[in-house]
């Protein structure tokens, strides 16, 4: 019997305490920020959209190997000896043409594992988070400066050069034999 009245009293008392709290919160300043008119400034370590400074890339593929979801695709072509690609801003000499550097940002999991192995710090995470697109293929970012045709051209050039190198290597001994036997003019190559 006593418990019955006690229950009623406790119920009413806790309801009143709850009402007092919510009434107090009516006058607390709201914490909402009116996005998109007002945007929060992200901290400096914020991990959002990736960016690659392709001029600094030496094509080492460390980021491609470090990515857990395989969202980076890189294709490189060896530079010919007579071509000078220059130096990156950190002082590394570039030896490879980076013909394809695609990042599928829709696959990226924003873990940042690709940032740490890069020797020239050319891939890093920016604070851009509003990059939605209407078409899904627009989310595959092409960072390389080569169009597919130029890339093909470069690859063919390198293949050509390597073929010439190989033929020069196999042709050298024949030439020496021809020099040692000067009496066989038809076998000159």
């Amino acid at each position: 019997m006593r418990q019955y009245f006690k229950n009623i009293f406790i119920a009413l008392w806790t309801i009143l305490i709850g009402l007092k709290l919510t009434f107090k919160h009516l006058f607390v300043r709201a914490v909402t920020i009116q996005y998109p008119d007002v945007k929060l400034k992200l901290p400096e370590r914020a991990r959002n959209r990736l960016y690659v400074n392709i001029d600094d890339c030496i094509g080492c593929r460390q980021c491609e190997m470090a990515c857990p979801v395989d969202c980076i695709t890189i294709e490189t072509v060896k530079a010919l000896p007579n071509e000078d690609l220059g130096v990156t801003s950190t002082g590394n000499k570039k030896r490879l043409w980076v013909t394809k550097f695609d990042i599928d940002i829709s696959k990226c999991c924003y873990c940042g594992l690709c940032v740490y192995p890069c020797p020239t710090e050319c891939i890093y995470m920016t604070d851009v988070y509003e990059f939605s697109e209407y078409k899904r293929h627009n989310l595959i970012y092409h960072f390389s400066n080569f169009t597919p045709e130029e890339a093909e051209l470069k690859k063919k050039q390198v293949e050509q050069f390597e073929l010439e190198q190989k033929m020069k290597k196999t042709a050298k001994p024949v030439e020496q034999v021809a020099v040692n036997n000067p009496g066989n003019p038809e076998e000159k190559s």
Partner: protein
Amino acid sequence: MPEILNMLIASVIPLLFILVYAVVILWVEIKVASHVQDRLGYMYTGGFHGWAQPIADLLKLLTKEHITPANSDKILFTLAPFVVFAGSYAAYAALPFTSTFIAANLNVGIFYIIAITSFVVIGILMAGWSSNNKYSLFGAMRSVAQIVSYEIPTALSILTVVIVAGTLNLQEVCQMQKGGLFNWNIFKYPPFMLITFLIYFIASLAEVNRTPFDIPEAESELVAGYHTEYTGMKFAMFYLAEYANMFLVSGISAILFFGGWDSPFGEFLSGPAWGVFWFVSKGLFFVFLQIMLRWTLPRLRVDQLMYVSWKVLTPISFVNIMAVGLWAILK
């Protein structure tokens, strides 16, 4: 001819009042909810804190398609929202908005109101049954049990006031409380009238299906209860009916306990026009209290709801009515 014109005006004015009030109270409810939760709520439509948002919502609901589920009882499905609304709208006929305006000055005013608000039960059951949906039926059955059980404490507490006032006519109940703050019914026979008011307030929360008694529309359990399958204007009717009901019970508690259209200062600021202002603001104050309770308390379970009604409210209101009756006789 003037008869019909009078009837028309008398029935249109409460309807207009309900429509305007519903638009305003929708905005107030969301804003109160937001600020209690430390956030902003409506901000854009119309400029200052989104005051035009409920109007936009109303327009959107008007243009939506009416989807009727297959295998549903089409007639009942279409009729249900209107029955629910008719139940609460018809009760506005007996509310005295001011000393000179009451749509129907019935001698059995409050009795008529109690009777006509039971119409809502039929409407809810129609809605739940005709939706052809297990969850809706659950919600409807719970709602019927709830409303029917809570009508008893409601009626008993109203009966207590009738004993004090000696009449069922709402206009006369208000007239008897004329004269300022301390003439109001809630200060008579202390503390019994206070207890009566508390019982009436809690029971009326259950009548309107508001938290903590809102299991018929329990959002986290049954999606939306008995009005899950409703779209467009029919859904808007349910919403309108709920808010109309809220003001109805608040208005009745204002009339019965707090003097109705009487000004708390006695003669100062009183008169027919001021009467409307006092009545509406008292009603809105209790509506505001109901809104605050919604955002404060968790929900009661079905059997706990029944326990509160039958084992707490009903016995206490019986004791109350006997105490007040005895006191009134011995006076």
